């Protein structure tokens, strides 16, 4: 297994997390309750061997799973939120909370990005960090997302984003909502440059995240079982005043309803990405642009 796993043997604080047993040798799957041997579970990329539940992984683990070893080079690692609306809740300031999130997640924001290689092909890649404020999008998150897109445009590289999280970050109010427009504006430029954007949605992917950049991939890939939607289960259940069926708004449900191109297990994602990037990058958009130019 790739080395980075050894540095981050476990991951934390996601709502549906695997429960580590006291001796740290065994963990329990939160979906099917199966007891799994920790070492094997790591090697299975944190996918339950029984029910195939894809547990959330940290941003760094995700990069290790996805990229050629040692190929990642991070950008803007230090960027962080400025607490735009001076938000306080129950006597605690958001500014203080940010410090806590940073410690918990060992990251300055809920998203990190940079360049890397997938089966030898250069890409710009950005991944969600759930451990930072539930992977919600604030001003710094949105800025990093926009810079990731612009980096792809600048270097003429394909863009891969691994998206998830709770949507826009309440604590940054309207500033966070506007990140939807900001990221989509950036993606529009990528589109105009005919560079491919592959979106990978992981559990859970909600609200403004899904309703902006996550859903707009040229190719949308979802991990099995991932809950992906505009509204969370609780909100929908309140609206409908009834319990949701178990598979509602899962990756498989979205595939059936035409919203994602494929549901792909964690282990297979890198090779699918490699195949897609190869075809798209071998296409010849410059010819198209050139000739369209002749038309005008």
């Amino acid at each position, binding site marked *: 297994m790739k080395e980075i796993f050894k540095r981050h043997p476990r991951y934390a604080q996601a709502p549906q997390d695997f429960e580590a047993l006291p001796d740290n040798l065994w963990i329990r799957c939160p979906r099917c309750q199966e007891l799994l041997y920790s070492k094997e579970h790591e090697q299975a990329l944190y996918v339950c061997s029984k029910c195939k539940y894809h547990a959330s992984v940290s941003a760094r683990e995700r990069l290790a799973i996805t990229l050629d070893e040692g190929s990642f080079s991070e950008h803007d690692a230090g960027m*962080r*939120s400025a607490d735009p609306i001076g938000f306080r809740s129950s006597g605690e300031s958001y500014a203080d909370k940010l410090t806590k999130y940073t410690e918990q997640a060992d990251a300055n924001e809920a998203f990190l990005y940079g360049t890397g290689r997938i089966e030898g092909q250069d890409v710009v890649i950005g991944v969600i960090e759930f451990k930072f404020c539930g992977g919600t999008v604030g*001003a710094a998150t949105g800025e990093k997302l926009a810079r990731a897109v612009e980096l792809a445009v600048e270097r003429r590289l394909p863009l891969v984003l691994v998206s998830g999280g709770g949507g826009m970050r309440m604590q940054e109010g309207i500033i966070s*909502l506007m990140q939807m*427009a900001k990221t989509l*504006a950036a993606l*529009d430029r990528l589109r105009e440059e005919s560079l491919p954007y592959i979106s990978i949605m992981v559990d859970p992917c909600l609200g403004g995240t899904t*309703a902006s950049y996550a859903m707009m991939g040229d190719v949308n890939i979802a991990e099995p079982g991932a809950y992906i939607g505009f509204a969370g289960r609780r909100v929908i259940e309140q*609206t409908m005043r009834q319990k949701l069926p178990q598979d509602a708004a899962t990756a498989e449900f979205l595939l059936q309803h035409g919203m994602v191109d494929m549901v792909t297990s964690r282990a297979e994602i890198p090779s699918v990405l490699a195949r897609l990037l190869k075809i798209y990058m071998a296409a010849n958009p410059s010819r198209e642009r050139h000739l369209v130019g002749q038309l005008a």
Partner: protein
Amino acid sequence: MVSLLDFESAELEAIRKRAHRDGIGGEQLDGALEARLTEIYRNLTPWQKVQVARHRERPYALDYLQWAFSDFVELRGDRRYSDDRAIVGGPATLNGRSVMVIGQQKGRDTRENIQRNFGMAHPEGYRKAERLMRQAERFGMPVITMVDTPGANAGLTDEERGQAEAIASCIATMLSLHVPTVTVVIGEGGSGGALAIAAADRILMLEHSVFTVASPEAAAAILWRDSAKAPEAAENMRITAQDLRSFGLVDEIIPEPEGGAHRDYPAVAKAVGDAANRALDVLLELSVERLLEQRYRKYRDISFFLE
């Protein structure tokens, strides 16, 4: 005639009582009531603004279409699945200019609210909006949108038909249009469901309108698991037109008539029409290249981060 909101009636009732006690009535009382009302509206709290923005008699999109525009022809349907009555739109004339108008539309009574789904659009509403935007672009017509929604509808069938995709795609389309776009927040701008038709070159807000990442009720439920704390959330989250102006997110605040938009439809409609028109005057001077660059920078340059 105009229904009073709770905070209005409480204050005005107190004045009436005092006047009755002091033997004051007629024009003098009317004057006192009016003065107090004006004062109240000059000092609305964020939560009071939410109530004004949601006032059942507040002018809705179709009212502006009647009072501020002419020749409006409603175009319906997404050409895919349905016609969503929570969003209305079509070509119209504003001050002699052909424009495409798209607005979220609430209902005024129960029957109409069922039809309009309380202004909460389904995916097909956003797809209709997108269709009309693309049509406007093709004909070189500026797009004017009016925002007034608690948010997008959140049911399982909305997930089935891609509410997230519909909103994302509508925003992306609006950002890519080669024609000028102006948004007026006329009431409640609720969440992504509002932003879907608000990613414009110019965002104008009525004086007492609000724009939120989530409705105060939803925010309170998320933050404190208690939607009754909505007034606190409203205070905390900086949702008023004035707040947004201070962040540089809104280009202009359109003053409302004394006592709120619902007290004078023709006046507020004129103000909205004039403001939109002024915005277009400027935007139509730009080349498409400049227009797109300015629009990009407007959203791209939203800052509030440290590095």
